[in-house]
């Protein structure tokens, strides 16, 4: 509400509106002062012994009694806010003067920026996700016995995977593990159910290297043994994993398959995280991305480790780490993961 002023006040006295206008002008002038001397001139102009503040004080002295209170308040506010503006401006001008001018666009100086290998990143993420489901990490040697790599996994003596064309034998009765499944055997031999483990690790197969094959590669193995573990549990857990790893709407598809160590066996696919299953370049227009194999642990495997298959069932799955890294990170050639070119490593 506008203050109402009585008639008959002195013509040369300032009214309250004029005081406020003066205040605004003073603050603007102070803020615009380009150096300390300009600022000081402005200060003197408004707050000095002969400054404009004197006009206000004069008006206050000459004001009728009933207006003194209001004008007094305005006079105080004028002095305080103009002084604050002067102080603030002085601080800003002094601070600018205290730092030598420099080029803030120069490159930053901190040499350290490390990266984890894409394979490590995928393994760490898988360990983390399955960790949320209560899986612990298990480990086994790279050099394995045929018992752990084949026999205990119900692989027949004449099975093609045992052929030296498909397995590196070291000539002393040992071999380089062809999958991380022997870790299942080692874990089950050492403890009773329930078991929930994942086993990331290196595996080896004499595959000729090309864009999608590498003789040295990584798998993450999963094993869950308890009472009444089912294909539905497998699907549910893999779905959880896929959604955490690839994206929130990813689905799992099972296709029938055959492995000696699981019965029934499936191959599982993720629905394409890029196109959502509609078909795109990443999923080769199929809407699905083949990941790996899984199934219900064959009773013969339980027999080999001394588990009672009338009491327990379990599921097992594998997954190729490089494959997931390539799909998720868009790496076109598996060899790039082993070239260790810093121009590639820096990107992840």
């Amino acid at each position, binding site marked *: 509400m506008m203050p109402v002023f009585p008639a008959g006040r002195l013509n040369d006295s300032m009214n309250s509106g004029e005081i406020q206008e003066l205040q605004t002008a003073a603050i603007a002038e102070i803020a615009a002062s380009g150096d300390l001397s300009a600022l000081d001139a402005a200060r003197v102009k408004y707050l000095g012994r002969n400054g404009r503040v004197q006009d206000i004080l004069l008006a206050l002295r000459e004001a009728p009694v009933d207006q003194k209170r209001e004008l007094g308040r305005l006079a105080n506010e004028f002095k305080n806010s103009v002084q604050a503006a002067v102080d603030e401006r002085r601080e800003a001008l002094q601070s600018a003067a205290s730092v030598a001018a420099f080029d803030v666009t120069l490159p930053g*100086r901190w*040499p*350290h920026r*490390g*990266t*984890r*290998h894409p*394979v*490590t990143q995928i393994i*760490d993420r898988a360990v983390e996700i399955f960790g*949320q*489901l*209560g*899986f*612990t*990490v298990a480990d086994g*040697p*790279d*050099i394995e016995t045929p018992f752990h790599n084949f026999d205990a996994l119900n692989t027949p003596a*004449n099975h*093609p995977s045992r052929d*030296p064309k498909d397995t*590196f*034998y*070291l000539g*002393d009765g040992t071999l*380089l593990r062809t999958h991380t499944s022997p870790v299942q055997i080692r874990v089950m031999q050492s*403890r009773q159910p329930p078991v*929930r483990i994942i086993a990331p690790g290196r595996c080896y197969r*004499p595959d000729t290297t090309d864009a999608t094959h590498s*003789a*040295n590669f990584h798998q993450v193995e999963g094993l869950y043994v308890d009472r*009444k573990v*089912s*294909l*539905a*549990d497998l*699907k*549910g*857990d893999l*779905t*959880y994993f896929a959604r955490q790893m690839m994206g929130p709407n990813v689905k*799992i*598809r*099972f296709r*029938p398959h*055959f492995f000696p160590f699981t*019965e*029934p*066996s499936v191959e599982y696919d993720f629905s394409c995280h890029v196109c959502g299953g509609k078909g795109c370049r990443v999923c080769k227009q199929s809407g699905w991305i083949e990941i790996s194999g899984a199934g219900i642990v064959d*009773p013969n495997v339980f027999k080999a480790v001394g588990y009672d298959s009338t009491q327990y*069932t379990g599921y097992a799955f594998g997954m190729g780490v490089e494959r997931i890294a390539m799909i998720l990170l868009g790496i076109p050639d598996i060899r790039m993961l*082993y*070239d*260790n*070119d*810093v*121009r590639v*490593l*820096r990107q992840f």
Partner: protein
Amino acid sequence: MRSVEKHPNADKLSVCRVFDGETELQVVCGAPNVRAGGRYPLARVGATLPDGSLTIKKSKLRGVESFGMLCAADELGLSGDHSGLMELSETWAAGTPLAEVIGPPDTVFELEITPNRPDCLSLIGIARELAAVYRKPLQKPAITGVSEALSTDLSLVKIEDADACARYTARLLEYVTVGPSPDWMQRRLERAGIRAINNVVDITNYVMLETGQPLHAFDRDLLAEGRVVVRRAKKGERMQTLDESEHELDPTMLVIADAVRPVAVAGVMGGAGSEIRNETKNVLLESAWFDPALVRTTSRKLGLSTESSYRFERGADIEGVEWASRRAAQLLIEFAGAKLVGDVVDSRPEAAPLRKIEGPYQKIRDIMGIDVADETIREIFTHLGLGVLDAPSGHYALEIPSFRADLERDVDLVEEVARIHGLDKIPAPSPRAVVDPRAAENGTPRAKAKLRSVLAGLGLSEISNYSFVSDALLDLLDRGNQPKRVPIPRPLSADHSVLRISLAPQMTATLGRNRAHQATRAALYEIGRTFERGADGVVEIERLCIGLFGPVGRIGFDRHSAVESEEIFLWAKGLIEALLATMGLDAPTVTPHPVAYAEQGASVEFHIKGVSIGTLSLLNRSTRKEWRMTDPVAIAELDVAPLLTNALAVRVFHDIPAYPSITRDVAMIVSDSVTHEDIIRVMREAAPPELSAIELFDIFKGPAIGEGRRSVAYSLVYISARRTLTDDEANTYHNSVKGALRKQLSAEIREG
């Protein structure tokens, strides 16, 4: 094709007179196989090729007019064949629309059949699966006109190895007319990837695709004494197979022989000497069962993998042998004019009783994790061709047919139900997260994850190299470890012939490769297993390797001035010290230590509590030269296990000082033979416990100091945990430090 003449102006073109059923056209053609009398697909003026790439117009080729185009199979989108014009059977009248010749559009499904399901390597097997999915009856072709009666004359077939050949049937056919098989049969064979040859061979292949049972037809007139003997090959026996390659056989192999010589490698491939010719009149039709393992080894040894061997290796249906023979005989009668001679010779053991499997339905549901009614499961079994027997309530009892050798136990039936009912119907419930109290065992992975994140925090990029490496690369860094290396007996290549015994060689190669790619600096690490032969076999040791080159430790933009050896060595050393401290380990002691690949005098060993944890070296010049690296390269190799020992330990709070400290500097000139560590040791020994920190803040060498000497300056911090130290006290401590330095290290203390 009425006539073909050479083009007057082009060597490779022909001018053809073509009859299209209505008129004669002139067409210029470049195909090598065009000949008068042949029948070929003709695209007339106005026709567009299936891929839309070309609409045929009247044109002139080298001056000769052409009114159409004779087509190769690829141009019609029918196959990839561009070797010549697509040859059509001469039974077709000129002018027949091509659609009639090639038949209606068809869809070819490519199926991946898992090795446990040889029964599905056939149309009937796939049809049985579909019958179960759609709950429709399976309809096999009806066979008429071929008797199942058994011949009593067994002289036609003699089996010498009944384990390897458990069943052999032979039918004799006469009046056979060899010629092309019907177009529909040729088309189906070609779409299944089998080349059409003649009606007799095509029929055996066609029945194989139908039934999964490989068959073979012999020209009986080419068999000595017109009979067959199933026996092991004799040492040194040789045979030419149908693919015209010559093989030396041995007694591990099974052959079909006539009275004199082998005429087929059993289950793998027929011999050239008894194959069906145009003149063949009398045929001996073989349908048999051979041992899978034996066929596999023979096929491998001879390098011959055929449709036949593929099926026998996985296991043919011993009970289906005769039916397939009967089906083929029916087709030979129908399409090759054949007549049967006598009844079938069937040499076989007594049929084994069918396997029975019993079990509760509930177990199937439990393993699937889905509710499926008993009745539905029973229906699935029935449609899969399994014999459903009476069983107590809640249980099933099945009789397993011979073609399902993969079904041995009750758990094997789960997949049957899951597959037919639909794996898509299995739900994906929320995980049953059960907390495993043994999760604490995850210490090592957690510590290792911490190690990696500390390394990343220190600015290192992780690399990953193969576990295989070449001996040459290992030799380059260290020949001394040769006896401990673990070779791979059958390596993929010489580059991958031995397991790595150290991570340093590949780290060096990685740095060198990046240098060659114009990288100016790199700070890399790898964590990996190394392999070495110990007294009790091969030991796997997890190691950490760090590699640095270039100005990686410089914070400024000074990238161009050369990196000094001392500089990069100290960066690496500082890095390792920071790593150890962050991993919760005590400060290491560092002692000079020879390393095979190090520059003389530029390698050290780190110890914690007297245990060696690894080395740091500057790579020697000769190794660097291999990758033309002129700048110094630092390589550290540490054992991972000791780095993890304290990584997860809880740190306990220590009081921070309550009283002010007093700092005193000391500058001195010492001989170059006096090391920093010598100075620290002397200071520590001479000072009371109040000496809390020592910091080197200057090193100077120069003419003013003199040859073989240097000036060093340290700040020493004195503090008491119980009271405020006085200047006098600090001076007293500091004087005793100075005295010890003078006395023990002949240091010239620079006062003032």
